[in-house]
């Protein structure tokens, strides 16, 4: 049986005044039913763009997207409509992702109306069910988004994404705009839904503690490229790429007795416009040497643990 989602050598370049911006550069991964892939990286690394391309909210430059074995890289209008019923998105900002002039129930029922399979009464009933599932009380049916708090708004976003009963949802930083106590409520809701419906998530975030908690596998992106991908526990206990190591060491941990040694990276994110062929992290890397200016190959030094760094083997040996 084919995997739920397969992405092969996906590329997205934007033309800018300064040259070609490599937003997503040669990303390959597979996602099975009921699993969660975490995508982490700093702002501008292309993680959001990646999610948008898979849903065809942006056109791809090159590469292939297979959904349940079917190629949907360049879909016809009809194929796209069908594909989007299977794939949905939850946005980061619960303020700008809801139309301020539409009430809660109008927003949730819109996908059902557009699909056109149910009668009016059935749509009303289904809308009620959806609100129930995401934990929105019926009395909010006619409320407008600005009358609700961030957590409830995000629940509307989740309900809208669930309406068409998709198999795969791109979660674009769904909890970063929320307070911790509310964040936990939404994360639990998403985990419950995954369990009940066998949903697959692509969880895009910059919050590493959240991604560890929710993901089966984690992909680390840097300037449009995948630098490392591994099962969640493995990545946190054995980060191989120098960037992953620095990233993990930078998380502030709410524990005053466990002060980690931080790896402070030099410099700032360089520009993804017309990048040089070598390792894009080279300028900030403490292990950098001449061979890093060669193109980096994604290797699999341990089962299911991929890393794109010519130094990763060497370092392992050094540590031993």
């Amino acid at each position: 049986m084919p995997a739920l989602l397969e992405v092969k050598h996906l590329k997205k370049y934007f033309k800018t005044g300064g040259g070609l911006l490599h937003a997503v550069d040669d990303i390959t991964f597979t996602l099975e039913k009921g699993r969660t892939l975490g995508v982490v990286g700093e702002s501008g690394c292309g993680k959001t763009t990646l999610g948008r391309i898979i849903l065809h909210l942006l056109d791809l430059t090159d590469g292939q997207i297979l959904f349940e074995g079917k190629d949907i890289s360049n879909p016809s209008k009809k194929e796209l409509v069908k594909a989007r019923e299977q794939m949905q998105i939850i946005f980061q900002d619960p303020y700008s992702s809801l139309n301020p002039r539409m009430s809660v129930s109008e927003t949730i029922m819109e996908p059902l109306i557009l699909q056109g399979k149910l009668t009016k009464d059935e749509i009303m009933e289904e809308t009620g069910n959806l609100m129930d599932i995401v934990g929105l009380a019926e009395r909010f049916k006619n409320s407008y988004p600005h009358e609700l708090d961030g957590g409830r708004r995000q629940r509307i976003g989740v309900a809208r994404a669930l309406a068409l009963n998709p198999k795969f949802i791109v979660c674009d930083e769904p909890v970063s705009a929320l307070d911790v106590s509310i964040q936990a409520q939404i994360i639990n809701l998403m985990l419950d839904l995954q369990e009940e419906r066998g949903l697959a998530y692509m969880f895009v975030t910059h919050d590493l503690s959240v991604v560890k908690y929710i993901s089966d596998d984690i992909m680390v992106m840097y300037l449009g490229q995948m630098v490392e991908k591994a099962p969640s526990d493995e990545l946190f206990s054995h980060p191989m790429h120098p960037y992953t190591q620095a990233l993990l060491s930078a998380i502030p941990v709410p524990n005053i007795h466990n002060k980690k040694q931080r790896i402070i990276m030099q410099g700032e994110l360089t520009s993804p416009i017309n990048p040089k062929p070598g390792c894009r992290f080279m300028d900030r890397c403490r292990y950098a040497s001449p061979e890093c200016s060669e193109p980096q190959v994604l290797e699999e030094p341990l089962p299911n643990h991929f890393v794109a760094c010519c130094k990763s083997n060497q370092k392992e040996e050094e540590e031993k």
Partner: protein
Amino acid sequence: MADNILEIHELAVEYHTDEAVIHAVNGVYLNVRQGETIGLVGETGAGKTTVARSIMRILQTPPAKFRGGSIFFQGQDIMTLSEKQMRKIRGDKIAMIFQDPMTALNPIERVGYQIAEAIALHDKVTRAESEKRACDMLETVGIPAGRYKEFPHQFSGGMKQRVVIAMALACNPILLLADEPTTALDVTIQAQVLDMMHSLKEKLGTSVVMITHDLGIVAEICDSVAVVYAGEIVEYGTAEHIFDHPAHPYTVGLFNSLPKLDSTEPRLKPIKGLMPDPTSLPQGCKFYERCPDASEACSAGVPAAVEVSPGHQVKCFLTGVNS
């Protein structure tokens, strides 16, 4: 008491809108010692920023309205000062950093000049002197002095926040109010900025009030912690106290709702419900509707601060009972 540079007594601030009165700050007590970094932790709408803005006296009045309380800065009641006296304190003795570095810098002025201007405004030094000090300040926050003549748009977000910090620290303030200074930054940049703030604090001896919602940041750089809920400080103590023996159910709830890196639990433990509506706060303890251990006494009266151990205060009826 003598080494407290800031003492806040029963501060109460309201916002008056057409529809209702928002009770943003309801009787806050806070002391800041010389050289101390205190974390003001709480969720959106808890009143953290209002407290900071009250200290700076930069609240828009109306809609804001002081209902009571006093703020003593170096023994002087800030609330009674004239606007002219306040201007001398602002920026000179108390500086503030805001969350968004993009809006804090003038986009059409070179960054070095902006720092030099801040120095010249307060210290009445020559132009050359202020420029030299601005260069030093840039170096201090880790920006090469060679970038003195660049414009804000040529800097990345993390660099801009450093410039903002350099500007705030340029006049050697006694107290620095940092309102979520790293929230808009990426983790690796945040780590750089926090590290820098930490070493600057050691070097300059500035007291810092760090407003944040991130307990991780508090653990990194704060000496003591004040947990804010619905405009009240519900728990106050040293960082050790709060992190090792959190006593208020809200603080405990906050810790539990965080995903832990080493956790194997299948689900998080969120605090149920929402923050109470600040236009109609509950009668008794403001947390009792969400509290897992609430009893009838909690809805009847407002709990007073109880000292559970020296310097560790908790506003909860249950603290004595549980421990």
